[in-house]
């Protein structure tokens, strides 16, 4: 369109000049031209705005959908660094990849439409020049696409190195390492490492970029040659009067703009398309990750299972995926309702693994685990969950309000929350907060309050107590006092003791003195149960437990 109107404008102006036409004849062409420009501009803005709206819609839908997928991934999948990588790569901003795909396709389509009219005109006048130009473009397209694929391969190759860069940058900028960073004054050292890794990546990328340019420009030069030949080949037509000079100028301007867009845009879109294609492959890989089954509500599950009665491990063997050796080598024990137990043993003996297995975090193990006499493999996630309340060694510190930290969106009586907080010795702290229970914790908000390590741990225990407040659950506490001071620790154990008097509880701790009153202590060593019995019995046995106990006792004599 633009070309035709431009041609009309030039031709008419020339006609006007040679007195062949009236001044009035100019007006439609001029108006037409302005209208087209305005339309182009307006439609471009609308297109951009529309793209923005579409992009946001897409962002919302995709981010939600991908998060849903993430929430349903099997726990063991999440423990793998490849999965975490994949999530970082494709699942947090999936719209970017889709956008890239759509944009590059759209860009190519627009490019094609823009150029098709010019090519058509060339084709009409000198058909074989048109054919040559189309051939050249196709060739260029294929070359760029191939280069794009290579680019992506190189990208995945350096992704690992790039993550290292990001990690080092984090060490130099984050809050967590601020103390060591300052004390050790290691910024120049880590920055040196940063630069070294950067150079390695840079060398690799440079090589690929070189290839890119050579390949891309070979195509560009070929296309330019076609344009130039079209320029000469159309000349005789003008000479012979088959083509008006206005049309010739317009066509050649068009041909050169084709070359221009090819030089600047075709390569770019093709490269992006190839990148997008590879990212889509990643997305497909992510979507194929195994998922846990959708399940019903916990309340229903609870009815199904009733209260906690017993938990039994029968000769359970387990190894972590990708690990060369068994972490549990045939573990057997039984926990009954109403009793207190403690797990003891050296680091790496398998205590935390047993907890995770109990709670159904890993589906694959040998031997049998029975919950309330039912095979664990036949229980749903909800059913298992409904029988436990846990405090983990690496308890979560949720940056939400105190109330939400305790019971999330569940409705609980104010008195109940207060009672538990009091029991944990947290009530004073909470009362001092500006908004009491509704004070936001953590650093997400300017108004957020930061708790100390000990306070967070107390909060985590309080959370489990509230979860278990209706009774009938097995309370599992993994090193619950690591961050507590002596008085708080003692208070915590007393509080927990009173709270779970008639409930089942399992303590996992290195502080043997604190748990010596439990009904049974199970001592793990090297993936097996080495000893079990009451404190008294184990002391008499004079085995590992007695040795561990004595080593701690020594410091208090």
């Amino acid at each position: 369109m633009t070309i035709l109107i431009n041609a009309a404008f030039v031709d008419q102006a020339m006609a006007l000049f040679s007195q062949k036409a009236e001044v009035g004849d100019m007006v439609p062409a001029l108006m037409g031209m302005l209208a087209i420009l305005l339309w182009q501009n307006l439609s471009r803005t609308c297109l951009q705005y529309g793209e923005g709206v579409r992009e946001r819609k897409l962002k919302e839908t995709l981010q939600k959908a991908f998060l849903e997928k993430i929430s349903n991934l099997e726990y063991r999948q999440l423990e793998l660094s490849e999965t975490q990588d994949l999530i970082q790569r494709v699942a947090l901003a999936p719209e970017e990849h889709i956008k890239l795909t759509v944009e590059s396709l759209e860009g190519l389509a627009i490019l094609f439409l823009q150029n098709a009219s010019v090519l058509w005109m060339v084709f009409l006048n000198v058909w074989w020049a048109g054919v040559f130009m189309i051939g050249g473009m196709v060739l260029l397209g294929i070359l760029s696409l191939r280069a794009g694929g290579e680019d992506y391969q190189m990208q995945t190759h350096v992704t690992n190195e790039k993550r290292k860069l990001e990690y080092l940058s984090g060490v130099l900028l984050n809050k967590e390492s601020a103390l060591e960073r300052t004390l050790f004054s290691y910024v120049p050292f880590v920055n040196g490492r940063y630069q070294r890794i950067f150079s390695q990546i840079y060398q690799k990328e440079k090589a690929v970029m070189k290839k890119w340019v050579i390949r891309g420009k070979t195509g560009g030069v070929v296309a330019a040659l076609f344009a130039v030949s079209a320029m000469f080949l159309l000349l005789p037509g003008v000479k012979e009067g088959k083509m008006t000079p206005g049309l010739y100028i317009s066509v050649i301007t068009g041909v050169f703009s084709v070359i221009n867009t090819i030089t600047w845009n075709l390569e770019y879109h093709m490269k992006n398309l190839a990148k997008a294609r590879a990212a889509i492959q990643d997305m497909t890989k992510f979507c194929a990750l195994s998922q846990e089954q959708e399940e019903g509500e916990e309340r229903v599950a609870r009815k199904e299972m009733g209260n906690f009665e017993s938990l039994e491990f029968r000769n359970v063997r387990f190894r972590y995926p990708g690990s060369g050796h068994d972490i549990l080598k045939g573990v057997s024990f039984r926990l009954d309702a109403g009793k207190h137990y403690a797990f003891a043993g050296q680091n790496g003996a398998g205590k935390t693994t047993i907890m995770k297995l109990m709670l159904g975090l890993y589906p694959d193990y040998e031997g049998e685990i029975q919950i309330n006499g039912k095979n664990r493999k036949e229980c749903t996630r909800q059913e298992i969950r409904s029988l436990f309340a846990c405090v983990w060694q690496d308890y979560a510190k949720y940056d939400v309000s105190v109330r939400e930290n305790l019971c999330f969106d569940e409705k609980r009586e104010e008195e109940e929350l207060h009672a538990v907080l009091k029991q944990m010795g947290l009530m004073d702290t909470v009362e001092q907060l500006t908004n009491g229970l509704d004070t936001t914790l953590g650093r997400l908000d300017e108004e957020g309050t930061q708790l100390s390590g000990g306070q967070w741990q107390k909060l985590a225990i309080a959370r489990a107590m509230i979860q278990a407040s209706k009774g009938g659950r097995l309370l599992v506490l993994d090193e619950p006092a690591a961050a507590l001071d002596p008085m708080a620790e003692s208070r915590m154990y007393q509080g927990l003791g009173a709270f779970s008097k008639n409930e089942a509880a399992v303590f996992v701790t290195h502080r043997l003195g604190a748990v010596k009153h439990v009904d049974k202590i199970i001592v793990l060593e090297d993936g097996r149960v080495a000893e079990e019995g009451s404190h008294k019995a184990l002391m008499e046995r004079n085995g590992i437990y007695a040795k561990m106990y004595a080593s701690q006792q020594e410091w208090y004599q």
Partner: protein
Amino acid sequence: MLKILKFIFPKAVMASPGLFFTSNLFGLSTGLFIGIKTTLMASFFNAVAHIGTQGDQVLFWGIMLAALTLADEVSNGLLNYFYDCVNRKTTAGFMTSLHEKAGRLSPIVFERPEFLDRVNKASKGAEEATRFVSNVTGLFTTYIPYVLYMGIYLYGTDKILVFALLLLFLPVMLNQFIRGKIYADAEDRAARERRKRDYYRSCIFDMEYVKETRLLGKTYFFRNKFEDSLKKLLNMEQEADRNASLWKEAMAVITLLGYGEVLALLVSSLLRGEIEVGSFAAIFSSVGMMYGILEELVEGQLGAIAGNFGAVRNYVEFFAYPEKHQEGGKEEPHGCLECSLELKNVSFSYPDSSKMILKDINLSVKKGETIAIVGENGAGKSTLMKVMMGLYEPSDGTVLVEGTDTGKRGSYGSISAVFQRFQRYHMTGEDNLVIGDYDKERDIRGVMEQAGLSFQNEKLFPEGKDTMLSREFGGRELSGGQWQRLAIARAIYRERGILFLDEPTAAIDPLEESELYRHFERMCQGKTAVIVTHRMGCARIANRIVVLEKGKIVQLGTHEELYQEGGCYKRYWDVQAADYCG
């Protein structure tokens, strides 16, 4: 704007002077080529309009044009290549400076969410700054030479035309200015919400949270929060987009009306016989092209510059954050391997908080003496330690190392430490040690042995000291206890006059714990050392014990003295010792 340019340009040039120069050389040639191409094209078309009358001129200009088109292709390719190269280097350079700056700040500022936002924005701004630099240099090397060239060319034919064209772009420029402001403001508002959104999402899959979130069955809770946050973010974006689009269209209409006038002007000059018909065609096509290029210049180039201006400003402003001390780099350690440490009337409160965490602390640690600090959670033990180390500057009072006031300089050049939350560096085993004191050569083997580790242990370190300690980066992971030992080894590697140990045994089993206390005993022997602990048995290692309560020292003395004295200390001791008696 000027200040920002003045700040980032030297940095950009220094990142790779050679590449910077080369890439801009090609930028310049590309700009000139486009200009020359336009005039060649005009001459060529002029010749075409007179085709048949002078014949051969067409061929001459045609060949010139063809040659230039090919040269342009090549120059363009080289430009792209060098720009890519220089941009990578520049980004790395910007990041390095950012890291250095962050290293010069007091660690206390990292406790503030407002500051963390700034860090976040600044590191995002580093990449934007690169784009900014290449856009600005492109403006000067490619666009301005071209516009000047064309301006001179057009000026030769019609003066008014040039001014009219330039005038046309005033509204477009104004639009870019407004646009930049709209997006920068939106970015400022969105940063916090984005952090929230990312956090809620991380509660669902991050290893720090996933186990608990799942077992509590509260995934949906965080998903709802995430969705709320996302919605808010998208609304902010929508609003900014809408405002920017409206402004843009309003300005575009004004510009186009002007463009119509310029064309009318052109026709009228033609009619009045001021230009001939060949030039008319040429000028017409150059006006079109000039308009196109100015549009690209203003919307593309200036638009991009305005668009990332906000982010670049965030980057640059970060460097204005007040520093702890003027010069960066390493603190010179005190010459002696044992230092005394004294606190005089030290009080401390966090900035922007009126609550005193430490109140009027007076404490003198003699050369070679070991002090233990005990007290309840929240009594201020960790803060006291950080003030003693010089990491936090006391609000009041002085900290003296070897009798000299450390003042603003901080005393940490003379200090080594194991923190409660020691870092697990995803680096090689050797780097994990060396990071503690990187410019000193030390006997790594001996240091490791003191912490009960050895790089010769192939089960732990299959590649010796070069073993990468991170599964994520293709290495192996250590257990909690092993990491703890490595942190201790790091502290030993950093041989300094005063040693701090903060509750270092949380994740360690009983036998190992006893072993570690013995390590500590040995490490502290004859050394100035400070231990913060909840384990009263461990506190006994110390020569003297400080009992802290609500930010004040309530008891100070040896174990025996304090036990006799009764009070808090006896209470703590009895409660823990009871576990191991009878």
